[in-house]
């Protein structure tokens, strides 16, 4: 039997190209394992062969998504790949999203199996759950790159099973994050017996396991359109980490749990005051040189003068979103909105990097 041919997908950092400054690196590939794929190959032994490692800059992927995916498809075809392994991405959001997109695309287009790994807080996990690809499996890892060996070992064990064609068990058996795909199974007890047993356990306070976990995706209501903006008070919000020079409120590069609002009253442009950028998740140089890129004040003032809307709220809402835990960022959003409503803000322009 031919050994299963594997393609690895990495970002610019793990491929050894560079850090944040190289996030615009276009898609490239090596016909061999590179970076963490070398260790992955060692863990896979003879069960599978990594024949190509493709890589792409985190920013470039998202800014040219369709084109990059098309090219990755060609590489996979040319190299006769059967399994794609993306990441592990840990908490890197752009990277994790890209890993899920690559696996989804190749599984849909070419029927490949996809294996990826990332922290449960990674935004890629949401996309994975939405896609529900039967052939894509996402393994939870810790946040820290230090856990690379654990992550690779977990993924390698599973990839070997896929590679040699062994039957794949449920999410709880294998350890991947469930896709909520319903699978039929024959068991000894009839449904009515199992249901009654489950009910008796529940009533007695004994542990029981539902056979059909119902995952309710968070429904975010769609606000109705605004009739016009003639009387509207518009507020600006930015998660790009723009803060006053000196960072008086102590924002962190990663995992912030707070937000603040900073005065833009009397300013016609962000360049009229002094700011700095605290955000570990993107190359800050351009934002630092011109914070209007994150808080488009100069353009808004022009439009305010031209009466495109009634007035601009005299503060912008600020936070820094790098590696923010979903629960923390949700709380930030909810409390920001409470303040906005209390202040008579009618609509918000939120800018994220």
């Amino acid at each position: 039997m031919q050994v299963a041919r594997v393609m690895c997908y990495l970002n610019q950092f793990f491929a050894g190209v560079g850090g944040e400054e190289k996030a615009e690196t276009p898609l490239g590939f090596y016909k061999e394992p590179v970076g963490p794929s070398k260790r992955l190959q060692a863990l896979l032994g003879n069960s599978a062969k990594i024949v190509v490692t493709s890589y792409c800059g985190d920013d470039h992927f998202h800014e040219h998504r369709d084109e990059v995916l098309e090219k990755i498809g060609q590489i996979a075809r040319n190299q006769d790949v059967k399994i794609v392994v993306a990441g592990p991405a840990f908490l890197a959001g752009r990277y994790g999203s890209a890993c899920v997109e690559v696996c989804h695309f190749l599984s849909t287009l070419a029927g490949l199996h996809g294996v990826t790994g990332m922290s449960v807080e990674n935004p890629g996990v949401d996309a994975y759950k939405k896609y529900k690809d039967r052939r894509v499996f996402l393994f939870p890892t810790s946040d820290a790159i230090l856990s690379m060996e654990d992550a690779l070992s977990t993924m390698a064990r599973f990839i070997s099973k896929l590679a040699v064609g062994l039957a794949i068990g449920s999410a709880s058996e294998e350890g991947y994050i469930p896709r909520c795909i319903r699978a039929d199974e024959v068991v000894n007890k009839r449904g009515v017996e199992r249901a009654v047993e489950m009910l008796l356990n529940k009533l007695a306070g004994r542990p029981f396991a539902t056979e059909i976990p119902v995952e309710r995706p968070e429904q975010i209501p769609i606000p109705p359109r605004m009739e016009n903006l003639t009387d509207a008070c518009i507020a600006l919000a930015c998660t790009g980490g723009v803060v006053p020079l000196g960072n008086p409120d102590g924002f962190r590069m990663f995992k912030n749990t707070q937000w603040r609002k900073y005065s833009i009253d009397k300013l016609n442009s962000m360049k009229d005051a002094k700011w700095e950028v605290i955000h570990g998740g993107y190359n800050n140089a351009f934002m630092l040189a011109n914070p209007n890129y994150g808080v488009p004040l100069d353009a808004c003032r022009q439009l305010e003068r031209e009466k495109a809307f009634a007035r601009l709220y005299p503060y912008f809402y600020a936070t820094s979103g790098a590696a923010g835990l979903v629960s923390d960022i949700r709380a930030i959003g909810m409390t920001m909105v409470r303040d906005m409503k209390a202040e008579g803000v009618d609509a918000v322009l939120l800018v994220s990097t």
Partner: protein
Amino acid sequence: MAFITAMSMVGQQTGASRVVVGTKLRHPCGDPNLPEETDLALRREIVKCALGALQMDVNDPTIFVPNILSTPE
């Protein structure tokens, strides 16, 4: 709310109702490669697109593309 970001697909997947495609991840509202006036004009266009999106009926998370996109590589 109108959400301006270069990661518009992710914004849409997360459920933001009106997502405006930003120029680039690191500078969503404009392009430092452009001369100052053109950069400001691009920023205006992005903001106008966002203000327009606020006034549009949408049933699902929708991506809006400003009239001018990024400069060539």
